[in-house]
Structure formats: C-alpha cells, structure tokens
C-alpha cells in the first residue's frame, strides 16, 4: 500500500511539475509550426507571471488578474513582432534581449511595488486559483489520487493540448500558420500576408504561454519571486522544438522533462549531489534533441533517396515503352 501511495504521489507531482512546461511548450508549438522559434518564451512567462499577481491584487478579482496577465504577454509579443517586422530587428536577437530585460525588469517592478527585490509575498495581496476535486473521479482509488485535486491551471493545460491541436489543424488560421511556416512565398502568391499570420500566431503563443507563467505565481504559489520561471520557458521551447511543433508531441515531451524534474525532486533527499540532478534534465534535453534531429535528417535523406529511385525506375520503364 505504501508503495502505491508513493507512486501515486509521484505521478501527481509529475503532472503538477509539468503544468507550466506544457503551457509554454504548446504555445511554442504554434510558432514552431509557423517556422519561428519562440525564443522569447521566458520573457512572456515572466511578464504574465508578475502582471497576473499585480493586477489580481489591484482588482481583487482573480479572473481579471489572469486576463491582464495574458494581455501583458500579448502586448509583449506584439512589441516583438513590431520590432521584427516593422523595425526589422533580427527576431531572435530581440527575443534574447527581451528575456534579459524582463528578467531584470520584473525585479525592478517588484522593487518599486514592495521595496524589496525578491518577492511580492506578504506585500502584494494577490489572488490565486485553487485546487479542484473532481466529483466521482476523486473517489476512485489511485486514479482519484493522481488526477483529482490538481490546480485549475493544470486542467486548463490538459484542455489546451486539444485547443492547440484544434487551432493548428482545424481552423483556417492554423492552416495558414502551417503554410507560412513552410513556404511564405506560396502563401503570399495567393494573397496571404505572412507577417500578419506570424503576428496573429504570436498572439496565441503569448496568450497560451502566459498561463504557464501565471500558474507559477497564481496557482502553485500565490506570489511572485525573482526568476520565478527558472528557465522553464526554454525547456518548453525545447519540448516544442523536439516535437517539431506537434501539439501532442510537445505535451509528451513536456511530461518527459517534467518527469526528469520530478525524479530530481524525489531523489534529492537521498543524493548528496543535488546539483548533478539539476543538470540532468538539461542533459536529457540535449541528447533527445540530437537524437531526434539525427533521426529526422536520416528520414529526410531516405525519403529523398526513395523518391529518386522511384522516379528513376519510372523513367527507365517509360524509355523502354518508347
């Protein structure tokens, strides 16, 4: 029995730990489909995470807070698009400097609001979403312990997998995002403006990614601390990149990285070298990324070879006919 409790607890915490990564990975999957790396993932999460805290405290309404958090991340994304598409700054360069700016900028704002630089806890009366017990399911043994009692954000994250899949594969915008990602010239030749599509895509990227930031400051805990995201943005980006922008793949990859974190957390008490464990998830990401890249490169090569062979055969047959 004890073992089972242990395992269910582990899976429960795996889902909990993966939640923010799932959000930002799904967001990044959209931009990945549009052919752009969401390098500003970290900045989006940080912005939303702090803005959600501040605005929920201001309005004393958690939903209004979340909406404002989302809005601020979307504004950031729009600024990024303006800088890249209108001012012609290299998009990745701008993204990287935004990450740095927001890492400092959020601390700056926290300081202005509280007088300390580390956290909003105790000073800003922010609100948060609570945990939810799902009727019926919560009464099922094991399954209830794993799937019930999570934060509302976590359930939204699971629903988001479907939402993003639907957006990408069942809407007109999704089709256009995928088209622009692979051949912007083709889209342009039939009157679709790729820059407009990218900008729209980034609005969704920011809106969905922002929830990951807000889960950290309004779900998992109810205050903001400096560097609250602790590079989860990049991990989400990596998840989406490894999954090649497929929503379900991104979700699975997020769980894999969440698992790495969960194992790390669970082993920490038993292993002295906790830093080694902290390094492990990153090592895992690099190895997985390399393996997937090698596999894809090989796949592409095999596909080309097969196609060429087929064509060569067809042409010899034709010549024989002639």
């Amino acid at each position, binding site marked *: 029995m004890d073992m089972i409790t242990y395992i269910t607890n582990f899976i429960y915490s795996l889902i909990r730990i993966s939640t923010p990564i799932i959000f930002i990975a799904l967001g990044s999957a959209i931009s990945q489909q549009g052919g752009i790396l969401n390098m500003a993932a970290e900045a989006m999460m940080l912005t939303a995470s702090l803005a959600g805290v501040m605005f929920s405290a201001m309005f004393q309404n958690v939903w209004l807070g979340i909406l404002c958090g989302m809005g601020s991340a979307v504004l950031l994304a729009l600024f990024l698009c303006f800088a890249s598409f209108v001012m012609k700054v290299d998009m990745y360069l701008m993204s990287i400097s935004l990450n740095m700016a927001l890492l400092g900028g959020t601390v700056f704002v926290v300081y202005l609001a509280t007088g300390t630089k580390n956290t909003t806890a105790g000073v800003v009366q922010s609100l948060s979403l609570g945990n939810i017990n799902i009727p019926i399911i919560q009464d099922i043994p094991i399954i209830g312990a794993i799937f019930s009692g999570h934060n509302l954000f976590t359930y939204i994250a699971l629903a988001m997998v479907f939402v993003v899949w639907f957006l990408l594969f069942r*809407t007109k915008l*999704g*089709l256009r995002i*995928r088209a622009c990602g692979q051949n912007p010239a*083709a889209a342009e030749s*039939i009157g679709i403006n790729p820059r407009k599509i990218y900008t729209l895509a980034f609005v969704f990227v920011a809106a969905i990614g922002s929830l990951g930031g807000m889960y950290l400051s309004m779900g998992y805990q109810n205050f903001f601390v400096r560097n609250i995201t602790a590079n989860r943005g990049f991990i989400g980006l990596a998840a989406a990149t490894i999954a090649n922008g497929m929503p379900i793949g991104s979700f699975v990859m997020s769980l894999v990285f969440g698992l790495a974190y969960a194992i790390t957390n669970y082993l920490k008490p038993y292993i002295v070298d906790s830093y080694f464990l902290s390094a492990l998830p990153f090592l895992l990401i690099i190895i997985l990324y390399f393996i997937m890249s090698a596999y894809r490169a090989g796949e592409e090569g095999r596909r*080309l070879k097969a196609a060429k062979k087929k064509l*060569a055969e067809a*042409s010899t047959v034709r010549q024989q006919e002639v």
Partner: protein
Amino acid sequence: MAKELLRMEGITKVYPNGFMANKDVTLSVSEGEIHALMGENGAGKTTLMKILFGHEACQEGKIYINGEEVKIENPLDAIDKGIGMVHQHFMQVPNLSVAENVMLGIEPGKGQLFDKKKAIELTRAAAEKYQLDLDPNALIRDLSVGSKQKVELLKSLIRGVKVLILDEPTAVLTPQETRELFAQLKNLKKQGYGMIFISHKLEEVMELCDRCTVLRHGRVTGHGNIQELNPAMLSRMMVEREVNLEIDKAPAVPKETILHIEKLNYVNDFGKHIIQDLSFGIRAGEVVGIAGVEGNGQTELSEIITGLLHRTSGEIILNGTETSGKKIKEIRNLGLAHISEDRMKYGIAQNLSIRDNIASIYLENPKFKKGPFLNVKELNEFVDNCIEEFEIACTGGTEAVRFLSGGNIQKVIVAREFSCGANFIIANQPTRGIDVGTADLIRRLLVKYTREKGVGVLLISSDLNEVTEVSDRLLVMREGRISAQFHDVKAVSTDELGEYMLGVKHMTPEEMGDLS
C-alpha cells in the same frame, strides 16, 4: 469568332534604371484559345506577365477583361478578375496535402473553422471535373513534378479563373509528363478556357497553340495563326543578330586537349534527364561557344564541370585528371576558372570589400601568404593591379562590392578569375545585363587569353552576337545533347543557328564531325 477574354493593349514598361522591358505590346486571348508567347530570355515575356498578374505596374497601356477596362493591383486582384498563373517554380507547401494547398486562402468552413472533409470533397470534385488525376490526401512533398503542376493548375481553376498563364510549364517536365499536360490543356481548351503559353520550344507551340506572339527586346516582332506559320518563320522572328560586333582576332591555333567530356549524363532530383550522353572536348588556344535556348542543360553542364553539382555518370578530364569526386578547390587547382551566370549568388559577397572578393580564390596561394598570415602588402598590390588592369571604377580596394554597378561587379569577378593562371576558363553568360563597354572588354579578354596565353575557353551564352563573334568553334546544345557543330562560325547565318537551337533542324554525327 470566339469571345475575347483578355486583351492587353499598347503595354509599355520602363524600369527605374531606364531599361525598356516592354514597348507597345498588344496581346489578346479568346475563349478556348491557347496563345503562345514566345521569345528569348530577356525578351520581355516575364515582365509582360508580371504586369498582367499584378506584380508590376506599367507606364502606358490598357488591360481589358471581357471587353471591360480593368486595373490590376496585385496577384489577389488578378485572381479575382479571373486571371491565374502557373508559376515555373511551384508555389506550394510541401508538408500540406493537395487539398490543403489547393484550398489555402479560400478555405471552406463556417467562420474561422476549416472544414477538412469539405476541402477534400471540393478538391476531388474539381480534379474530376478538369480530369486531373490527383489524390487530395497526398502530401505535396511525395508528388512528382508533373503532379505538382496539376496542383498548381487546380489551384487556379478552383478559384474560377478564365485565363491561365503558363510560365514555361514544360521546362521542368519529362517528355511523358509533357504529353500528359498537353492532353489536359487541350481538355481545358474544350471547356472554354483561354491560356497564355510561354515557351521557346517550337514543336510544342506548333502542336498545342492556336496563335502566337513573338517578343524581341520588348517589342512584338511577329504574331499570327499557327496554321499559317512554319517553324522556320517562327525561328526567324525569335532569333536575330542586330549589329555586327567586330572583334579582331587572329585565327585560332588549337593545340592539345584541355578538357575532355565523355558520355556525361545528369538526372536531376525529380528524375528529369537534363544532360544525355554528352561528349566533346576543348583545346588550348580556342574559344568554344555553346549556343542554345536557356534551360537545355547549359547551367547544369557548367556546374558539373566546376564541381558545384554532381554528375550521374560519365567522364570529365581536365588537364589529364579525372574530376569525379574531387572538391571544388581541387578542381580549381587543376587549372579551372569559372565565371558563373548568377553573379550575385555565386560570384561575390556583397558586403565584403573588393579586395576580399578578389582574394577569395587566392587565400591558399603561397604568393599571398607570409607564414600563417596573409601577405597584405602583396595582396593589396595585386588588387590594385587588378583594379587598374580591368578598369574597375571604384574608390579603392577597400570599397564594399555592393556599392559598385553591375558592370564593375562583373569586372571584379573577371579580374579574379582571369588572373589566377588557369588554362581553362568557363564563362557562363559573362556579359548578361551589363553595359556595352564592359561586355566588349570581357569578350576581347576572352579572345586575348586564348591567343596570347594558350588558354581554352568554354563560352556559354544565349546572346547570339556574342557567341558567334567570339567563338572559334560553335556547338549548339538542345535537350542536353549537342545538336550541331560549326567550325566556320562567321559563315553561320542567324536563321540557320536559330533553327538548330529550336530543334527545327538536327545535324547527324557525321555532319558534326570531330567534337574534341
């Protein structure tokens, strides 16, 4: 008389740099008519079609659709008004399905939703209607070139266009696919579509088209019903030799063979046989010209010789060494210099200085090295000499190449390639799009190097003036083969040359004689 679908009248287009691309061009297409638009590269066909499809604006002229005058602002506008274009480079998204590609931009479905089933249904129905054999669920990347072209056709047809522009549609197709395409086009013709068929392949035009308009230097040089024309007449309208360039040259004294090509074959990634059993040779001290309509394998030939492209089979022996499997640097070291036809893509690095651009092939040359470093003094001297000798108009060796005019950029390339001491120079379209003075200089240099330094030159050019004036021996290339050889180049008439280039006439191997 069938109803007139489209009429372009008195179109004149002058580019900002003063180049007149079209002058008073008139063209009309009727219902159920395939109208051939012919002319050599640079004759103004592409510009005319860009104007029609809304990519460019013209200074003078009117466009009528169904008898009404219209203004076409952009491609979307053109499609709305019933004009569709099948681009030579397909505008398709490789990882999307046929249905998704066809429906992109006009997706079926309520509101923002994309109804995939309906898209497939609509695509299938349209494909059946136009008898295009396509699987709506197949991914574009898995299709053959012929099928991709069908998708391109369907994309236009499903948008309800009545006039189709086909930009050299057969250039990328295998003969089998070409036959299939023609059957489809004839079918569309029956259904009342009007088509503009851009091509410079005479037999295709003779087989498929009803009327034809020929452009040369932006002007209409001939038009009429195909039935009333014969290939020789068409060829004469297309090909001309305006002024007689006069280059004084001593008679060539060909010596030993420098480049020997034997049974060269190249099949591209899409299975098209671009170069077929090509064999010829070039000797020291002669300029061998290759004339031919572009797209008959000349580009691939020059890229294979220089190592940028890998051959399918065959031998290339440069100065006694087989080049197969050699790196570009090694082939260059065998004594090759290369003027590429795409100046901006291969010839230069725009943001770097003239010095760097000239130095690019001399970086490992001991003359310009001092230990591990560049011998800057020597290099600067060399570059200054180049600037002086080749009359490059610039402020000095440190000026970035992007500030130079086209002619001076070409001089930079020529200076680099001609000074490297190679005994074989391959010059692909060396004077295209540059001023008369520079063009003349380059032609004279080609002749001078063969006479004085015993260099062998392969000159590939679609400029007949150039190729007949400069060459000591002239080959005609058509469909990846040599179709004619002339030893007495000056005696060849333009009409005759045109007939060989366009496939009206062929020489037998006996008539051609020894190609080496």
